C-alpha cells in the first residue's frame, strides 16, 4: 500500500510517496537522502536512529512512515552544519567524544532533547537522558563531559 505524505524535515517540507512497510528511518535515509541517522538494532534499544518527532526524541526505527503525515522531524543534519556547528557538536569534537561515530548522531539528538527540557542537568540526569543510546567505543565519559560543556556554553549564550 502506497500513500502520499508531507513531512517537515529540518524545517523543509517534503512531499513523499511511502509504502506501509517503510519505517521513518528508511524514509529519512533513502527518500530524503539524509544518512546521518543510523540503523543499529532496529528494535528500539540502541538509539542510533534517534530523531526529534515534534520536538521529542524517538527511535525512528519504531515509527511507520505512513503514520507520520504532517509531523516535524529533526535529524542530526538539522542540528548544525559544518560551517555552523551546534555547541553540542563542537563540544564532542573538542573533547574527543567521538571514536567510530556510528552512535553519535543519535547521541547528539538525545543530548539536544535533554538540554531543551533541562538546560542545566546534573551528571546523573545526563546519564539518564542518554540511557537509550548505546556507544560501544568510548565508555561514555567524554560524551557526558561534552554534554556538560555544551550545556554551559548554551547557558552563557542565553544569559547574554
Amino acid at each position: 500500500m502506497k500513500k502520499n505524505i508531507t513531512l517537515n524535515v529540518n524545517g523543509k517540507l517534503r512531499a513523499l510517496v511511502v509504502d506501509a512497510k517503510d519505517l521513518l528511518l528508511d524514509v529519512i535515509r533513502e527518500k530524503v537522502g539524509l544518512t546521518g541517522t543510523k540503523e543499529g538494532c532496529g528494535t528500539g534499544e540502541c538509539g542510533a536512529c534517534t530523531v526529534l518527532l515534534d520536538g521529542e526524541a524517538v527511535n525512528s526505527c519504531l515509527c511507520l512512515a505512513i503514520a507520520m503525515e504532517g509531523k516535524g522531524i529533526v535529524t542530526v543534519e538539522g542540528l548544525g552544519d559544518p560551517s555552523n556547528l551546534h555547541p553540542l557538536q563542537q563540544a564532542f569534537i573538542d573533547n574527543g567524544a567521538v571514536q567510530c561515530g556510528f552512535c553519535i548522531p543519535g547521541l547528539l539528538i538525545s543530548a539536544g532533547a535533554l538540554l531543551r527540557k533541562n538546560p542545566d542537568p546534573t551528571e546523573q540526569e545526563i546519564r539518564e537522558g542518554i540511557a537509550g543510546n548505546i556507544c560501544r567505543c568510548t565508555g561514555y565519559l567524554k560524551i557526558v563531559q561534552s554534554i556538560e560543556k555544551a550545556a554551559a556554553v548554551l547557558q552563557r549564550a542565553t544569559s547574554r
Partner: protein
Amino acid sequence: MLPSTFEYLKPPDLAGTLDVLNQLKDKKVEVLAGGTDLIPMLRSGIRKPDYVVDLADKGLDDLIFESDHVRIGALVTFTTLCEHPGIRRKLPAIAEAAIEVGAVQCRNLATIGGNVCNAVPSLDSGPPLLALGASFRLQSKGRERIVRSEDFFVGPRRTVLQPGEILTELIVPMEEQFRVNFLRFGRRKALTLPIVNGAVGLAIKGNREIVNARIALGAVAPTPIRAYKTEQLLQGRKVSLELLAQAASMAATDISPISDLRASAEYRRKLTTVLVGRALEHVLRRGADRS
C-alpha cells in the same frame, strides 16, 4: 523496512475505528498505539497482519482527574505518566513504574494501553494498576464493558480482548490514605526487563491497624497477579516488624515463577520476599512522612 506490507487504516474518530475493526473482525488485524512492541514484531515476522489500524488522534490520550479516580486514555505515553505532576503526586507508583519502561526515546512513543494489551508477564505498568484496583474500559462496535485489571490478563501475551475490541481507557481509583509503592529489580539500571516487579499498597488507621492491603507482583507468574494470601495475612492486623517479615515470606508462596534467561525460579522467590519486605517498610515510611 518491514518484510511485508499491509493496508494502513486511520479512521478519523473512535466510532469509525470501532466500525472498521468490526468489519475486519475475521481478518488479520493489528491495532497501532505507540508501536514500540508492534513494529519489532512486524519486523521479525512474528505478526503478519493484512491490516494495521492506527489509534492515534482520536482523543485516546487524555488524562482526566475526577474526584475519586483518574481516567487515563489508552494512548497516554509513559513520558506523560512519569512527568505529569498530578500522577506524581496522587499516583506515584504509576510514575515510578513509567520511568522504568525503556529509555527516553521509547517512553516518548510507548503507551500504557499498548503495554497492558501486549500483556507480557513482566509489564511494569501491571502491578501498580492491580494494586491500585484499576479497571479497564473495553470498547467494540455498539458494546462497552469494564473489566477489573486482575481479570484482564489471561496468560503471557493473552488478554480478554475479543476480535474487534480495543482498550480505550484505564480507570484508576484514588483512595485517601492508601499508599502504594512500586518495586522492581533488574540486572541494570536502565533498558532491562525486571526479574521481579510489583506494587505494595496499604491503608493504615491511626491505631496502626491495616485496613486495606493490595499487593501485586509481576514476572513471577504467567500474568501480573495479586498476592491474595499475603493480603489476607495483613488485612485487619496491627503493623509490627514481625508481621511485615511474615508477609514478605508469604509473598514467595503466592507466586508461580519459572526459570528463564533472566533468573531461576528459586532466585525469583527469594527476590520476591526481599522486595516485598522492602516495599512494605517503604510504604509505612511514606505514610509516616505524610501524617
